[in-house]
């Protein structure tokens, strides 16, 4: 377990903050793509687990994979410690190509411009001074890294 240097919460804090584990709600990278669901009736793409299609509420959701390419909706650099993430670290909200909007850590500590092209990757990348726990989704700016 990661040492909790972050602010303490009396709420359900999750394992990353030194609390008990909770079922992980984060999107995941599986076989190089973002795992999610698509509605069989209306085609709506969803990133978060849902009981049925939240768009048409009629269709059943079947597993689907998205990206890994996408466009930045907005990015920021956070200068607060959050869980095991030491500041500064960058986050971006990304619209995956023909897929859902997901939030992910950025592998470079800078504000990614709105509309810039990125690729989502998994693994244990670094975001700022911290590394993910292996279950995070990361944003790689296009033209960087590999």
């Amino acid at each position, binding site marked *: 377990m990661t040492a909790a240097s*972050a*602010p*303490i*919460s*009396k*709420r*359900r*804090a*999750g*394992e*990353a*903050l030194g*609390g008990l584990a*909770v*079922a*992980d*709600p*984060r*999107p995941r990278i599986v076989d190089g793509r973002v795992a999610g669901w698509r509605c069989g009736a209306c085609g709506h*793409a*969803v*990133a*978060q687990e849902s009981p049925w299609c*939240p*768009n048409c509420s009629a269709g059943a959701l079947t597993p689907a994979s998205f990206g890994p390419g996408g466009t930045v*909706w*907005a*990015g*920021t*650099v*956070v*200068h*607060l*410690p*959050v*869980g095991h*993430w030491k500041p500064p*670290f960058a*986050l*971006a*909200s990304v*619209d*995956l190509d023909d*897929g*859902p*909007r997901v*939030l*992910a*850590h950025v592998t470079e500590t800078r*504000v990614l*411009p*709105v*509309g810039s092209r990125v690729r989502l990757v998994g693994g244990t990348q670094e975001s700022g001074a911290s590394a993910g726990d292996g279950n*995070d*989704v990361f944003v790689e700016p296009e033209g960087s890294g590999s």
Partner: protein
Amino acid sequence: MTRPVGVWGVGTSHFGRFPDQRVETLAWEAIGEAMTAAGVTADDIDAVFVGTVFGPPGVAIRVLRGTGIGGVPVVTIEAACASGTAAFHEAAQAVASGRYGTVLAFGVEHLSSLFTGAIVPEATDADGAAGLPLPGLYALGAQRYLAVHGATVEQLAQVAVKNKAHGVRNPRAHLGRASSSGAPSLDEVLASKMIAEPLTLLQCCPTTDGAAAAVLGRARAGDVRVLSSALVSGRPWDQRSDEIWGVAPVRRAADEAFSAAGVEAEDVDVLEVHDAFTIGEIVTLEALGLCKPGEGAELAVSGHTALGGRQPVNPSGGLLSRGHPLGATGLAQLAEIVWQLRGVAGDRQVPGARIGLVETLGGAASGMDGNAAVVALLSSDPSS
């Protein structure tokens, strides 16, 4: 509303960090002031609606223990930052429908005993588990707004300059009292510690303890009237959403509230809105219809929303200065508007204010455009 609803009395605690106080003592300060102003005693209260996010569980009845109020229905509402406004909304609707005669609404929060800094994101939430703090969510919205509308960081910061200048005039404001040297300048706001780019520390509300309360009943001569109130919840916010997070629910609530009151945005004389972060006030004023999308950034700069301007926004200092004890905030906003409409707001009085607006937005469940939003319109007694 079927029966005209009046705000009989309002009250608040002081706002700040109070390690020696508990939720009960803060709430008693607010409830006592509201009941005294309303001219009611414990036996007059038919029902109680309570707004709180972090409780603790059972806080409502623990507060009531000391007050002599008991045996009546007590309902606690959690709607994130809009919890207190939602409690007010339910109280107003209960009076309007005739369900209850005299209703107490209060909100309370003791955040300084829960968090040493910013509120810790919820581990069961996808964005929370990914490490997105609330200022980060608003920062993403601010970055999008700056890029789409060509707005500037100076325009964002001017909202903090304005509201902190207002807060200096409010003896109960968390940061108002501390500002012996007066309100910060634009340069000081921009130079304060970066929290989540582009939002600096002085553009983020502090972690605050406090309580606020109101007693509502059928409108009597001289009472501030509740013209309308609307409570909405969130809808999906996803790849189809062109607007930044948190705008759409405010617009839904505003459309309903303005329509029900028969009032236009330009008719409003004074507003208390959810400025947890500077960008929040800007997009909220757009959603309320004070201006077109993209024009909200200029309202603080032009002085339109400053005390002395055409439509002062957050004369209390807002969340940025009064502080943001989540469940108490909505009722603290209501208290300010009631004082303004009664003409008893002291140094921060908006002269001749007749119509006031309260707006609160609660967040932030990921994938939804908000948890809840409340917009209420109030007026001074039309016959006075």
